[in-house]
């Protein structure tokens, strides 16, 4: 794989992981807000919040599949281990 292709792949993986983290933060907020709302006696929002949270999980799952494919297609960028006086064969 040429360096440009490798750099693009790495950027795509980094962007996907950053997006997953952003979605996770949104989900954390959603969960706490829903719990707060539920405890305050407003039960109607729980269903919508669950649907949104499930959608975010599905998006995260899709991004994970993307990361997995990109990561596998390109192989590892660096040797997995440089420690130790021996080489695993």
């Amino acid at each position, binding site marked *: 794989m040429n360096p440009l292709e490798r750099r693009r792949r790495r950027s795509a993986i980094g962007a996907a992981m950053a997006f997953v983290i952003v979605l996770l933060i949104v989900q954390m907020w959603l969960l706490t807000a829903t719990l707060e709302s539920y405890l*305050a006696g407003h039960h109607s929002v729980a269903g919508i919040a669950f649907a949104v949270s499930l959608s975010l999980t599905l998006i995260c799952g899709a991004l994970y599949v993307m990361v997995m494919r990109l990561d596998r297609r390109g192989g590892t960028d660096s040797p997995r281990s440089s420690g130790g006086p021996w080489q695993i064969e």
Partner: protein
Amino acid sequence: MSDDVKNQRPVWREEFSVDAPEDAYVLRRQFTKFLVLTSAGMACGNGWIWLRSLTADARPAYPEVAIARASEIAAGAVRTFSYPRAQDPCILFRRSTGVLAAFSQKCTHLSCAVYYSAERDRLECPCHDGFFAPDSGRVLQGPPPRPLPRIRIEQRGDDIFAVGVEEGAEP
């Protein structure tokens, strides 16, 4: 010692060929998988709240329980009781205007017991100075995030009955 002997790997290394740094290495896809599993866990949490809200909406009516006699509660006086379960402490009080009111006694912040201050005409939580309005239970000051649940009461003759709970009463 010759170089050949120095470079020779120990015999046990052949038998146990696990590299500790390699074992601790986390791949990008492993890390992403962890994030996705966390996301799924949070979706499950939201699902649990949704299921709870479904069952809460289908909850049977609250029982009617006689909690006090109206003639025994003077202005500023307080009576505690449990409603709807024995482990749900509540507070009944008469304001200076003569109106009776009842609320859950557990502060919505950290569940400390609130008390009625007749001189300031408000419900007060001594733990973190959370104050609640005596008419609606709404938060007047402090860290409580929600109003106090209001206990619906009815007076029949001299008897006062608790007949329901209003979560998050609006002002």
